[in-house]
């Protein structure tokens, strides 16, 4: 496991492990159900963001259909939970993820021929179609604007505190697994291929990397994760409305990615955390919340394009070179 974690010094590894352990122990000491619900929801959004970050930031593909894929994962696993009750719920969620992955892969193919910005329009149009179709609730598959009916879910028999804790841990597990996966993928052939396609497309083609396969893979993998997030959401909230894939959550998620830093591994974590906090503070003033959101998005993109992660790593490098200079001077 050299490549992915080469940048991890012992210190950093220690910090991360400590963080993970603390996060795991957290629900044992904290019980407020209102905030725990928010936290679990934020975890699910984070999974979605990690998936979106992979295709948007690391592969550099203008994919604006991610929320529709997420929804399809929810609808897919929901259908299985309701109508194929012999399938255990965790499997249903995974299958929902696979369904979303397949759709995502199918969506990838037309984008292969398209010039950058047209991809955004194609995926955007696709997302709109999915949303409209879902709103019209064909054959009761989506629940229309009332939302999906209640499903068995992962932990149907737990009391409230235990329910929240269980979901917290499951989601945290998925988050850790996906972060590890993303970090590993980054260093893998696929990750390098994706980054070189993003940064220098002509060069990549000349080097014999197959950009099409890489892109399709990126769509598929991110679709899978998004689908799982959808299934988790449906299972946790016991509902899923078409609003979940509208422009509003999309703007929130984009802002989360941008604040954290598109294309970085930890970016989505930071961005999701910060915006969730802002969201809880401003939840009673939707007008203000989004005005602030718009401003933040604008300011960050212009002044801090690498997001907060970029800012921190730049600061970190400066501190280290300052320290190195000091050491040199003394030597």
């Amino acid at each position, binding site marked *: 496991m050299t490549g992915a974690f080469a940048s991890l010094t012992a210190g950093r590894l220690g910090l991360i492990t400590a963080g993970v352990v603390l996060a795991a122990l957290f629900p044992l000491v904290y019980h407020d159900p209102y905030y725990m619900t928010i936290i679990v929801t934020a975890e699910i959004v984070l999974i979605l963001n990690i998936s979106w970050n992979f295709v948007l930031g690391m592969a550099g593909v203008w994919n604006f259909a991610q929320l529709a894929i997420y929804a399809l994962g929810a609808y897919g696993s929901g259908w299985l939970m309701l109508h194929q009750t012999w399938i255990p719920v965790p499997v249903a969620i995974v299958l929902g993820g696979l369904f979303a992955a397949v759709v995502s892969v199918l969506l990838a193919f037309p984008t292969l021929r398209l010039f950058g910005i047209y991809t955004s329009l194609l995926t955007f149009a696709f997302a*709109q179609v999915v949303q409209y179709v879902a709103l019209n609730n064909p054959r009761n598959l989506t629940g229309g604007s009332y939302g999906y009916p209640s499903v068995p879910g992962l932990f149907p028999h737990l009391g409230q505190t235990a329910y929240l804790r269980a979901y917290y841990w499951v989601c945290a597990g998925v988050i850790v697994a996906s972060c590890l996966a993303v970090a590993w993928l980054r260093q893998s052939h696929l990750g390098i291929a994706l980054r070189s396609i993003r940064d220098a497309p002509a060069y990549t083609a000349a080097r014999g990397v197959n950009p099409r396969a890489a892109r399709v893979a990126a769509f598929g993998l991110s679709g899978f994760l998004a689908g799982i997030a959808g299934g988790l959401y449906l299972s946790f909230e016991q509902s899923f409305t078409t609003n979940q894939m509208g422009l509003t959550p999309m703007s929130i998620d984009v802002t989360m990615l941008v604040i954290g830093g598109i294309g970085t591994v930890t970016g989505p974590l930071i961005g999701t955390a910060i915006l969730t906090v802002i969201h809880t503070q401003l939840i009673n003033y939707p007008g203000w919340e989004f005005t602030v959101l718009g401003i933040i998005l604008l300011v960050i993109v212009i002044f801090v394009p690498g997001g907060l992660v970029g800012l921190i790593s730049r600061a970190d490098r400066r501190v280290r070179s300052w320290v190195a200079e000091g050491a040199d001077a003394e030597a």
Partner: protein
Amino acid sequence: MTEIVAIIANAVVYGSIYGLVAIGMTLIYGTLRILDMSQGSMVMVGGYVGWWAMATHGINPALALVLAFVFTFGLGTVTELVSVQPLIGRQKSVDFEMVTFITTFAVAIFLTNVALQHFGPFQQNVPSIVGGNLELYNRVSISYHELTMAGISVVLMSGLGLFLARTRWGLAIRAVAQDLDAARSLAVPVTRLYPLTMGLASALAGVGGVFLGALYFASPTAGDLPLLQALIVVVLGGLGSLSGTLYAAYLVGLMQAFCEVEFGTTWTLPILYTAILVILIVRPNGLKGSPSEARL
């Protein structure tokens, strides 16, 4: 026969709406190579200006239109200076398009929510520019307001065409669209030209907003649908092609009119979007588009 008249009448009306709303977006894409997601909000702002001027202050319609034009022109200029200008020259062109997609989107969010805070989520009635209806055939009628809108739309679009073809600054805008470096080497002040272009485009959308307001109310989210409609038209026509946008506007208007009469309004937009999907798959650059050439 009644159906055909209804379809054509509606097609003309829709086509002019789409034209006004999309033409600005194409102008911006042609010169700046960005997709301006704030165009929808300019329509919304225009609607509010129309309401404020005509409903609350009794200002006459013609003056209201001028006010909307001027106000959204200014707003568009500021939007460019705030959300596009700082990013120019900073990064690779593909990143530039994506980032400005986000920043102009951010401006749209900002404007929508300022309107929400200030006016509340209520729909406001915007008075018609001209009252009364014209009966066409067998009880199919078209309002004078809609006729005026179609007329003004044609006037504005021709005006834009003349401006681009015959004036010094119109020529400069086309030059920048076709070859930025060559234009710069001919002393075209691109840093002044960009805000001007975006202001002009936003002004067109603003005027469209006044007309649309009478048909669909002024509200903070009044710009959402026009934005989506503009995207459809602009993609179909080929990004950056003015003539393509015009054809596409009336084509989409026709498609929408046809869908509504035959299938009812619920399925119209999904059908339109599916049409885009199909067209993009078959013709990756839209009906008349081609990525390496600009046709402004």
